[in-house]
């Protein structure tokens, strides 16, 4: 039962998506404390910490499976919001007329096809009122506000010109450390 089950009927989750995902940026929290301020870009930090995908060896799209318009799609493991796939955009692009927030929260999701854990950046698309379609709340690995880098309760449109939230993307930004 999800907060918004009334509004979004969610199907059973894939057990494959519940693999070990924690710890890929262990220490980031500690790094935040003591800083003069926190103008950190959590995604940028995560990408730095993870193994980057070689530019000349991007994974082909047939290495993924599933429906990006479904809440069960593997990339959405930590999402909480409207899926841009249903709002005129895609899982990794914003709908026309909106702006992608450069700062955001991240999750680590296991791709069931290749069995790898990936760092997923859930950049919000902003500037137009709420999409209102395909609300999806998974929250795996989600943390409260004190771990801002992993918190989907924040309105991450704070990094865009407009703080009006529209929908969420799920962008692969790196391979996660394996434990």
């Amino acid at each position, binding site marked *: 039962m999800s907060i918004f089950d009334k509004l979004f009927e969610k199907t059973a989750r894939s057990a494959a998506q519940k693999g070990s995902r924690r710890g890929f940026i262990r220490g980031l929290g500690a790094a935040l404390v003591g800083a003069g301020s926190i*103008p950190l870009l959590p995604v940028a930090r995560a990408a730095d910490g993870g193994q980057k995908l070689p530019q000349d060896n991007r994974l082909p799209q047939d290495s993924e499976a599933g429906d990006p318009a479904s809440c069960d799609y593997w990339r959405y493991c930590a999402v909480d919001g409207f899926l841009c796939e249903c709002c005129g955009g895609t899982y990794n692009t914003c709908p026309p007329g909106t702006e992608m927030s450069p700062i955001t929260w991240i999750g680590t999701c296991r791709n069931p096809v290749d069995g790898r854990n990936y760092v997923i950046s859930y950049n919000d698309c902003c500037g137009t009122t709420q999409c209102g379609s395909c609300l999806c709340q998974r929250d795996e690995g989600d943390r409260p506000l004190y771990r801002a880098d992993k918190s989907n309760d924040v*309105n991450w449109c704070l990094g865009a010109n407009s703080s009006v939230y529209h929908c969420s993307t799920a962008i692969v930004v790196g391979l996660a450390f394996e434990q």
Partner: protein
Amino acid sequence: MKSLRSALRLGACSVLASSVLLSSLAFAAAKQAPEKAPRPDLPPLPIEETGAVRTLPANFPESWMYVDEAAFFSMFGGKIILLDVDEKNPTKRIKAIADKNLLGNFKAAQNRNEFYIMESFHARGSRGPREDVLAIYDKNTFKILKEIVWEDATRLTALPERYSMGLSKDERFLYVANFSPAASFSVVDLDTREVVDVIGTPGCVLTYPTGERSVTSLCSNGGLLTTVLDKSGKKASQQRIKPFFDTDKTPIFERPAIIDGMAYFPGFAGKMHTVDLRGEVAKFVETWELVTAEERKTNWRPGGLVLNDKDDQGLMYIIAHENGADGTQTHGGSHVWIIDPKTKKRLRKIKLPGWGISIAVTRGKQPKLVVTNGDLNLDIIDPKDGSLIQTISDFGNVTPLLVNKAY
């Protein structure tokens, strides 16, 4: 409104017209009693004054609650609804409504006749320069006493929190959380109605009132940061309290029940963390178990959005669910546990009539539970026997995610 009337008159809006027609039929059906003959012998009705606006009593009944309607589907429509949850007549439940734009934050004072809404506006709806504004309201008139515009538009915008704002013990100072994502809080002197300081809290968020004039925030390393203020509300010193949980492996909810100055932070997996906020600086005290060994076998654990609250007797109420796992922590639960934090004993388990997402408890010696249910309506429950008193819907609610006591 005039154009709407015209549209109805012209029949241009078929949906609305259909609704009106249905309403009219229902009304006609209800009026089966024979009409009485007109009584022209009676004196005419007295002429009434226009422009009258109601006010509220000085002290609100214990059953009145402020419902934080986050308006997740249209954040321009956020509002605070003052609601009598004991009222059986649906037309009499709403007492007043205040706007709360773009996931605005809310705090009610207990002793000042005020409440506070921290909200944001873009100049032209969803675009244009953003302005963050603290609106200080008179609770009896629901009129704004003063608006304070933030110098930087940095106030925290997030799902509703009880401690996105806090009040000093004497209610002279209001603490307002900012997050840009640089974390800080603003101190507002409620006597002069001016911002007196903006204090950075690197890596630490939210505003838990501590002692007389201190503020504690929860940090990304699993520790705390207490900011001590001087008499004028400016920063005097800051002190970090070492980590007492692992934010990756043993996370806690950022939503404590604060009872007599003791903050009880539930952990995701069911361990309670007690922090003493009575002194000038916060102190971590201990952890203790909310869940029995038997319950742990089927992964019973606390969960929900605003998953806990307290009553005036010092008891704590927390939503719980079975088969908990990573990801279920904010999804709510089927039961409410009533806990005496002094004895660390669970007094009762209440099976909810449906599902519970958020919970609040009314004031007084005979408290009632106000549970935001899976249909995003409010179940009013007697905690003595778990009986459902009534379900409140159709009060302008879409996503009533947080309910607060009103004074």
